[in-house]
């Protein structure tokens, strides 16, 4: 960087006026770019609107006697009524979300071949988890309500 010749007694300036202006301009432009990128990131990372909790009415609990196992296609779940009470299991494969097919003795996934027994326990991978239980309760009219 060529330093301007200066008078003998004064300290020399390492940058001349022209270089300083160029440097300042670059700095301001870089700041502009940074701000723009920041705005862009804020714009693109806006969280999607929270989907409100979904409720499905499965009908009167009395429709499902003890020991019954009912696939509710409209809600993508299987409803089990055991001595321990009602249980709703999601029929979405815990692997990558395909809808399971009921088959004798359990459920199988048409996409990658995972299998589950009729209580939702994992029999064969690639899935690594049992079927997901859904929150279920009875309302004051005695209807079973599933939330997910």
């Amino acid at each position, binding site marked *: 960087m060529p330093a301007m010749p200066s008078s003998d007694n004064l300290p020399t300036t390492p940058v001349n006026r022209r270089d300083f202006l160029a440097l300042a301009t670059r700095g301001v432009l870089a700041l502009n770019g940074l701000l723009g990128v920041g*705005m*862009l990131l*804020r*714009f*693109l990372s*806006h969280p999607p*609107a929270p989907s409100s909790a979904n409720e499905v009415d499965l009908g009167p609990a009395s429709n499902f006697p003890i020991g019954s196992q009912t696939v509710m296609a409209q809600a993508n779940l299987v409803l089990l009524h055991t001595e321990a009470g009602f249980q709703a299991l999601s029929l979405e494969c815990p692997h990558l979300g395909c809808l399971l097919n009921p088959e004798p003795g359990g459920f199988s996934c048409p996409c990658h071949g995972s299998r589950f027994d009729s209580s939702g326990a994992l029999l064969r991978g690639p899935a690594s988890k049992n079927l997901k239980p859904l929150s279920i309760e009875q309302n004051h009219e005695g209807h079973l309500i599933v939330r997910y």
Partner: protein
Amino acid sequence: MRPSFFHHLHPPTIPARQARLRYTWGAGGFSVFLLLAVIFSGLLEVFFYVPTPEQAPLSIQSLTFLIPYGGFVRNLHYWSAQLLVLAAGLHLVRVIFTGAYAPPRRFNYLLGIGLFVALLLLDFTGYILRWDQDVQWALVTGTNLLKSIPGIGQWLYALVTGGDRLGAVTLIRFYGWHIFGLMLPAVIIGVWHLFRVRRDGGIAVPPPAQRQDAERINRTELVRREALAALFGAAGLVFLAAFFPAPLAAPIGEPDAAKQAALAPWFFLWVQQMLRWGDPFLFGVLIPVGWLALLALLPYFTPAPSAVELGRWFPPSGRAAQLIFSALAVTVLVFSLWAWLAAA
């Protein structure tokens, strides 16, 4: 300094007069800048806009009010689009009043007119994408105008609206035209237009032998000036976007509190004014298309300014074209003002 890609887009040197602001107004250059701004902001809008009649106005509201900088992006898109029409219009004014439409630039002049029409249609389709109460009558009358064309009217209407009534298919077609069907030709013709500027010998100036000043500037200087203009332009656009929100109204079909006078988008106000006088085919199609044809054919039936007269404003041998264009432009301005005052 090694020339960059942007330097290579320019000739190594040009006559200094070609880059003089008071000669060109930089209107063509600003148009390129604004086109880039409008494409960039439009791309961002595509991430959030949902082109269905129920969702379109709501997704715009969500973009405008709920997404951080969504309103800013929308304002940028709006203002760069409006200013683009203005800049392209001023570019046209400059070309006419400096005689730059004359051969060998006649064909490029036609390309420019085509670009201008594409810009107007882009602006109009973008306006319709709002799908709110402010645009509904422009949509209804604009598409019904097509029906008034004898013979092919019904076919054109079905082509544009996608059916026998306005609805979801219409909106998706306007969306398709806006982001693709018009955008792509506009960009292609735009690049062609720029290429032809160089091919036709650069911005119109007298041939080297008859030039009074021999001064030339190199492309480093040219790019520097363009970058400076773009910086000022960007600052202006960002100011506009920060303080002047793009218009938006309640969705079509919701109750509207006060029925105000329905106003066409500003660049079609003059057509709206003529439509008050009667026959839609005559006033809404024939006259505007005739106006456009007259404008496009100006270089073909008016005397061309001689090469030595180029490079300055109002060459005397271009009087015929200048007068006809002035008459056309003043008519459009007066009609637009008339329509605007009538509504206000």
